[in-house]
């Protein structure tokens, strides 16, 4: 007598073996001394990043999450993130199965509900890893809850968010594909979300006079005023569901945790039943998303992602390439074209500038110390872009390595190819960071008194303009160097990843920053020495110090580039093929 189909054990087997085999394959690389050294360094770094703080007894992140302002601010942030999924459909990757999963699971005797469960099971892999990373990072703090309690809270938070993103993606994808019932199904969540957003904005708007007064007292007072606004009855009621899943993570003390947990469980359970009930819409949406991903991956493997043509069929205008001249310019030009046509870099730049201009207007109307506030915002944004930008701006070797065989046939020494790949993305990203300064400069030109008030001087602004490309070159060299040295481990391509990988991204950013910090010891030391000798911290000595420091960075990058060129020439194409 034949056995009945057992899809759940089969899927569990599939995911268990997938993880085990992938791990084995990745660890197999450690036989090579280069990868082995990376494993050792990586383990030391993870120990340092995750465990050292905990051993000190009070991790800075753990202290931060237990402050009074954490829950309201995080609730508002989370609400905005989830609103994005509803308005723009979330990330299709939330729905997608791999082509092999589609081939084996969809025609198999597996119900739609079981398919939803398969997707949920697979999402747990990333969620559990993320939970582990954040549980360790959030350890410490005298009043905090036990480790397992925080871990459970984090798992529930990430699972609820994952379910929400999946649900939003299913409803949105169906509404976009169909008319009638499917589209009507989107109306209710959009109305609900709209109401919640309006309620939160209403709370902030009614607190506007308080915010104006607080802005004079500094950023901490502003944060407290925003927190009070979010705690007003209307905003607090609207934010309750978000707060309910956040509180177990953020509230210190076992009693508070116990009181907060039941509500978080209810929200998670509601999400689960909601997503499982969407099973009919799921299959179609998942297939469509899978097809979309396959198309994107196919494009990436042979070249790039994204839609190059506008809806009207026009191609984005790009700079013209002269047919003669230094050949590496062709490589740099190609990457600029990729950013303009494939990566919508120009749109991002425009959005940044418009956003900043809007912020400038708001800052000037909201505060009597607009220059101060706006300068702070600009520099915070700039710093974020400098450190995080190289992770998502990937129009360099990380884009081209899957075509390594073709790159290797180019009649250029390796270092010139590597330099061209890095130069293009450095130039583009420098323009992005420079653009941050356009709006404040305009603002200050209109009202020069604001400049003096903000503490920024012309030499400081010029120094920032000079230092940005050099710093970007360093950061992109680190990113490209890592991709070249460890192509089998580094994510190649440009596909966006969900919040489930937030923990991994945090560690990657930390590692990059650490390497950059080591490289900057001498340049920054030299710059500081110049400023100390001249005792001029706002004048033209700043520019001299910046130029000297930049020269040292360039001197460090030069041999590094030559070495990476050698690595490029020796790298085996099969090593890259395994990672794409």
């Amino acid at each position: 007598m034949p056995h009945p189909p057992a899809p759940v054990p089969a899927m569990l087997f599939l995911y268990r073996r997938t993880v085990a085999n992938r791990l084995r394959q990745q660890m197999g690389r450690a036989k090579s001394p280069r990868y082995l050294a990376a494993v050792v360094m990586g383990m030391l770094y993870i120990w340092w990043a995750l465990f050292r703080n905990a051993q000190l007894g009070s991790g800075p992140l753990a202290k931060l999450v237990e402050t009074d302002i954490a829950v309201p601010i995080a609730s508002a942030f989370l609400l905005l993130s989830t609103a994005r999924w509803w308005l723009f459909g979330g990330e299709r990757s939330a729905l997608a199965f791999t082509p092999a999963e589609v081939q084996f699971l969809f025609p198999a005797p597996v119900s739609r509900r079981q398919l939803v469960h398969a997707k949920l099971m697979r999402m747990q892999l990333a969620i559990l890893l993320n939970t582990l990373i954040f549980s360790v990072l959030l350890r410490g703090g005298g009043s905090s809850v036990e480790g397992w309690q925080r871990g459970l809270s984090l798992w529930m938070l990430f699972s609820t968010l994952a379910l929400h993103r999946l649900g939003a993606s299913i409803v949105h994808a169906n509404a976009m594909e169909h008319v009638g019932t499917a589209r009507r199904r989107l109306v209710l969540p959009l109305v609900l979300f709209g109401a919640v957003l309006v309620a939160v904005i209403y709370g902030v708007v009614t607190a506007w006079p308080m915010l104006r007064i607080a802005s004079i007292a500094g950023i901490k007072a502003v944060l407290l005023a925003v927190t009070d606004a979010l705690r007003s009855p209307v905003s607090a009621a609207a934010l309750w569901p978000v707060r309910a899943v956040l509180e177990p993570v953020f509230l210190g003390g076992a009693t508070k945790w116990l009181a907060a947990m039941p509500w978080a469980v209810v929200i998670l359970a509601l999400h689960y039943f909601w997503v499982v009930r969407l099973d009919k819409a799921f299959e179609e949406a998942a297939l469509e998303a899978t097809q979309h991903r396959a198309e994107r991956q196919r494009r990436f493997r042979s070249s790039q992602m994204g839609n190059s043509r506008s809806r009207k069929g026009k191609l984005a205008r790009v700079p013209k390439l002269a047919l003669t001249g230094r050949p590496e310019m062709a490589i740099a030009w190609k990457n600029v074209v990729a950013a303009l046509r494939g990566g919508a870099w120009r749109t991002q730049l425009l959005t940044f500038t418009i956003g900043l201009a809007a912020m400038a207007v708001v800052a000037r109307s909201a505060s009597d110390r607009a220059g101060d506030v706006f300068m702070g915002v600009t520099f915070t944004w700039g710093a974020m872009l400098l450190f995080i930008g190289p992770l998502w701006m990937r129009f360099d070797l990380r884009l081209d390595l899957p075509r390594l065989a073709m790159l290797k046939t180019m009649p250029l020494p390796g270092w010139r190819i590597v330099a061209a790949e890095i130069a293009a993305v450095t130039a583009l990203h420098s323009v992005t960071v420079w653009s941050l300064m356009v709006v404040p400069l305009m603002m200050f030109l209109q009202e020069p008194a604001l400049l003096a008030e903000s503490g920024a001087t012309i030499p400081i602004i010029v120094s920032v303009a000079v230092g940005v490309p050099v710093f970007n070159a360093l950061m992109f060299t680190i990113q490209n160097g890592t991709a070249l040295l460890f192509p089998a481990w580094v994510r190649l391509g440009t596909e966006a990843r969900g919040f489930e990988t937030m923990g991994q991204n945090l560690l990657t950013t930390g590692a990059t920053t650490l390497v950059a910090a080591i490289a900057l010891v001498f340049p920054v030391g030299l710059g500081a020495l110049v400023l100390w000798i001249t005792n001029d911290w706002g004048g033209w000595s700043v520019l001299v110090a910046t130029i000297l420091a930049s020269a040292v960075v360039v001197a460090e990058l030069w041999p590094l580039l030559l070495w990476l060129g050698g690595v490029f020439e020796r790298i085996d194409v099969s090593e890259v093929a395994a990672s794409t």
Partner: protein
Amino acid sequence: MIDVIEYTKLYGDTVAVQSLSFRVAPGDVLGLVGPNGAGKTTTLRALAGILQPTSGSIRIADIDLHTDPVAAKSRLAFIPDEPQLFDYLTVTEHLQFVARLYGVHDAAPRIPALLEELELSAKKDALPTELSRGMKQKLAIACGLLHQPSALLLDEPLTGLDPVGIRRMKETIAARAREGAAVILSSHLLHLVEELCTRLLVIRKGQLVALGTIAEIVEARPELAGRSLEEMFIALTGDDTVS
């Protein structure tokens, strides 16, 4: 001219290609044939400078690929079986990119001529995603021909082409050989090999099995006389079940 002397490629303990030596003179079209996994692509990739040989030497137009790779690469073109194109560059922009990369001084008149020769003129502003498989193949070949290479390496060049495209491509390859290029063509389409190639290189499990014109191969292996190329291939590569 392509000179390969004792070329060996190892992957760990696995021998991919062993002590392969041959020469392709200007105007010659060498057909590289062998069963799947014989080492054809590994050989072509080594000739293109993509893979480093474990031992042996490769010379392109009398330039050692190992000691002066840039000069050697500027004389060769490698067209892989799967066209590697940039989705965000149009057909013409691909050729402009190659022109700058290889320093083609007369690119401006050559680009439209090549587009015409390969029937790509109507698609000159199209992106690769808007091209059929055959058109992509033609674009990859156009990119390879733009700098007038001395050595032309083609891996399954007719994949995806329609009958008219196949005929046109055969004419293009033959024309390049007549102009003095040394051509190596790897293909499983034996009738194409028979029609286009002046000599054959048969490899099996990374080792040379036969090298020369069909007449020379038959002279060395008289038992192959009177057989078709397909039968010769099966006999030479060890799968004798058909014969």
